[in-house]
């Protein structure tokens, strides 16, 4: 067992964890915060997306011990216009992927605002590219939706991005 201190949604948690325990299982099983979902447990779906010091990561491939001293934000700690926009644009059906989609989209908007390029950004572009539908879909490709609510998801993000 290793003692780790992780701030989760602003609250300092002191935990005794085995090194093999993922951050995802720590959140869900040790802290009882089940908002963050487990889809594939192998980095392939994005359901487990959380923010680590504001950056989006897949918590299923993160060992909790590696995040000692870091600050984690999960869906339980989020109050953002995207949430309401997802509802209005039907950006969900079963809702299983939604916490990951919201966390991912918040960090994605932040990356874009900092001028980060994506695979569909023209290489010569230096300023932040316009957040077109194509850019949104590429930047959100790490979040799969088994219900296929992609159109609503992309619209909700586009609406919030345009504000």
């Amino acid at each position, binding site marked *: 067992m290793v003692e780790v201190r992780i701030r989760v949604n602003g609250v300092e948690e002191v935990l005794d964890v085995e090194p093999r325990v993922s951050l995802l299982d720590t959140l869900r099983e040790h802290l009882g915060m089940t908002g963050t979902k487990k889809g594939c447990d*192998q*980095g392939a779906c994005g359901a487990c997306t959380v923010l680590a010091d504001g950056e*989006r*990561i897949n918590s299923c491939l993160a060992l909790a011990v590696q995040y000692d001293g870091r600050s984690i934000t999960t869906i339980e700690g989020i109050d953002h216009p995207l949430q309401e926009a997802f509802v209005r644009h039907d950006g969900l059906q079963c809702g299983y992927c939604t916490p990951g989609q919201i966390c991912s989209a918040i960090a994605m908007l932040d990356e874009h605002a900092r001028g980060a390029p994506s695979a569909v950004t023209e290489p010569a572009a230096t300023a932040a590219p316009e957040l077109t539908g194509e850019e949104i879909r*590429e930047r959100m490709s*790490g979040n799969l939706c088994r219900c296929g609510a992609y159109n609503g998801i992309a619209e909700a993000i586009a609406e919030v991005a345009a504000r």
Partner: protein
Amino acid sequence: MRSFAYLSAPDIDTALHAVSAEPNAKFLGGGTNLVDLMREEIEQPDTVIDITRLPLAEVAELPGGGVRVGALVRNSHLAAHPLIRERYPVLSQAILHGASGQLRNMATVGGNLLQRTRCVYFYDTASPCNKREPGAGCAAAEGFHRNTAVLGTSEHCLAAHPSDMCVALAALDAAVEVRSVRGVRRIPVTDFHRLPGATPHVESDLAPDELVTAVEIPPLRAAANSRYRKVRDRASYAFALVSVAAALEVEDGRVRTARLALGGVGTRPWRAREAERVLADAPATEEAFDRAAEAELAAAVGRPDNAFKIDLARRTVTAVLRRLLTTDGSTP
């Protein structure tokens, strides 16, 4: 996942001494490949040495115009770095074509270099796989092999190298700096990964006690005019069927510099030296590009499910080179 001892290394010396003292230890970068493989019990280290707190996360300009990238620079940071976007757009693009935003935030340069194959039988511990268990046989030869290689294969293994970043690094002639308690050495990235031959479980030139500390990319004028194209089964978040990294400089209608490397088709990130030879001083035309691609792929060995890659690679090489020309057949 098996239990293991965990050590977070505060400095490089501690990491190097720990790995040399412990025969079955693994370094942990972003964990996006190692944690997955440990969960599947394909990797079973006794000790995991977390290196993410080491001071190796800098991107710095080298005298003479090259760039030095610390082994712990995150993939997303490298792709967005102004020096990389300006001098080596092909590298920025290659990284952005790999994995997802979340994974690129976690993944490190060292871990990307050492990521293991996505051959389905390597992951399926119920199937024979020479890479996982030397001498067991290769289930892919007679089984599902759509995502395996056509260049550099052996009767023992056909697995494709999965990295996008490494394809760009191969085209750019980057060098990998590695350190152990025995000292420092530099390995050209094109020699870093091994062909499978009779020992597909030996994937790189790195000794078990060596730590990758940096990647150095030399200056290359042609790299300012460079591109990465990736062909895959879905638009994003999928490994390459075929990918091409290319840099091109044309003068008076003739190729002055051409650099070319292929992904998805080789058992290692595939520097296309045959194609470069054909292109040297050739007219910058589609026919010459096609001839060059054909020369590279002459040695390719296709199997029922992956033979399509040979023609796809040829067409992709030609298309990318053509895309690097301006409308008047020159380069910027």
